[in-house]
């Protein structure tokens, strides 16, 4: 004699299972799904949320954007766990293309990195002209610097800058967040510390942060975004047709129009600038 308890539970549970859309996506032909590995910044800025629905509607592909750091995205592509990559670390990308992991690298847009910090600016970074000089001043003042510390494109660029400044940061004033740009900016703001950020994420979050742009415009702060396809010769399981379709979509005139206008309304300036595709 099954009590009402168990009957009710079984009923509730089976309703849940029957009504669940689970597996409907997995059941679709594998070649409709495109796994896109990318850095945090493109998702955090909201650009992917604008572009992907347009692409999906147009082509019927389903894009799975996985936002991890650029370093992790490259590793994922190398393993063949992604079909296409959107990354911003040319120094790491180009050797991998040479080694045959990725093909058809197209550099199609850029924005820039900026050094942000508290308005009081104890290290007088605002007076510096060059990023390397600014970092030296931060080191000399032993002012706190929050690093992404997550092997992302931004983190890699920061390491290049420290090297150019001839410094290896010490633990006392150098903090590694190990998180995305948004979380790292949050820590820098709470601790009134300096950090390196891409302009798009900073503009997006500026109203919640007690930080200001203190240094910008040094050519070494250029942030170059590229799209690359996983080489189907190395990873036959990769959805190369889908990857090529998305890559072509990114450099199409329509998409360039979307990128050109992205952020203009909200920030009075575009968040990404287009490059002639190379």
């Amino acid at each position, binding site marked *: 004699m099954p*009590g009402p308890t168990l009957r009710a539970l079984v009923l509730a549970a089976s309703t849940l299972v029957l009504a669940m859309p689970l*597996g409907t996506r997995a059941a679709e032909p594998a070649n409709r799904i495109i796994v896109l590995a990318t850095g945090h910044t493109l998702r955090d800025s909201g650009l992917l949320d604008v572009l992907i629905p347009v692409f999906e509607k147009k082509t019927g592909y389903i894009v799975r954007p996985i936002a991890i750091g650029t370093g992790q995205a490259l590793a994922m592509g190398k393993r063949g766990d992604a079909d296409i990559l959107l990354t911003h670390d040319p120094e790491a990308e180009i050797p991998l293309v040479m080694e045959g992991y990725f093909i058809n690298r197209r550099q199609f847009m850029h924005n820039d990195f900026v050094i942000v910090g508290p308005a009081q600016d104890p290290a007088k970074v605002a007076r510096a002209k060059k990023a390397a000089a600014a970092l030296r001043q931060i080191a000399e003042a032993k002012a706190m610097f929050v690093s992404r510390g997550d092997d992302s494109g931004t983190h890699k660029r920061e390491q290049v800058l420290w090297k150019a400044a001839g410094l290896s940061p010490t633990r006392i004033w150098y903090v590694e967040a190990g998180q995305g740009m948004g979380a790292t900016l949050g820590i820098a703001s709470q601790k009134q510390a300096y950090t390196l950020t891409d302009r798009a994420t900073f503009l997006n979050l500026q109203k919640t942060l007690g930080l200001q742009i203190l240094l910008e415009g040094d050519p070494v702060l250029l942030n170059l975004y590229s799209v690359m396809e996983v080489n189907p010769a190395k990873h036959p399981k990769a959805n190369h047709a889908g990857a090529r379709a998305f890559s072509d979509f990114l450099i199409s005139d329509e998409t360039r129009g979307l990128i050109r206008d992205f952020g203009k309304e909200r920030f009075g300036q575009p968040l990404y600038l287009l490059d002639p595709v190379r």
Partner: protein
Amino acid sequence: MELILEGVFTAFRLVFSGDADVWAITWLSLAVSGTATLVALILGIPLGILLALTRFPGRAIVVALVNTGMGLPPVVVGLFISILLWRSGPLGFLNLIYTPAAMVIAQVVIAFPIVAGLTMAAFQTLNPKLRLQLLGIGASRPQLLWLLCREAQLPLLAAIMAGFGGVISEVGSVLMVGGNIKGQTRVLTTATVLETSMGNFGTAIALGVILLTLAFGVNFILTRIQQREQIRWPRPS
């Protein structure tokens, strides 16, 4: 303080304006964690009963494993399930990574030891003489199991609540195996993390409020069942 109020207002606005994204996220959380809990019950209750009522060589090891599993860190589960399900991994051919199915699998792994461990505890606290009495009055084996389940239903419902509570609130494994993809694998916990990192604290708090309300709702229903049964069926003295 202002921020929390803003979050609560945002929560109400999002829920009552029927914001499609928020509803989809809420539904997916409920569906993934509900299914995972159900599968964990199907696997965990029999194992718990087996461990409580029988003796076999190696049982102590299994019990220790189950008890360890009750505190399994979700990120560790997420890591291992990811490696297994990646396209380059041994189960990559299933094409499950970054799907709700992968999230269910990870959450089953988290909830199953909780359910098994609490079921085992529930059956071990029953008076051992009860079993002999029931067998003595001629109960068959299925009848015996059924009556013991009835007897242990209060702690069994607690096991269900603990299993569900463990998975609906975890973020580590669903983030890793699901990828937090908008419209596909984004659930309340991963959306909360994302909104916080994007500085949308109002929305983040709103999602947190919805998550708490959901967890409360499910537990309230289960508690009602648990407590009502207790009154209707007085336990034999």
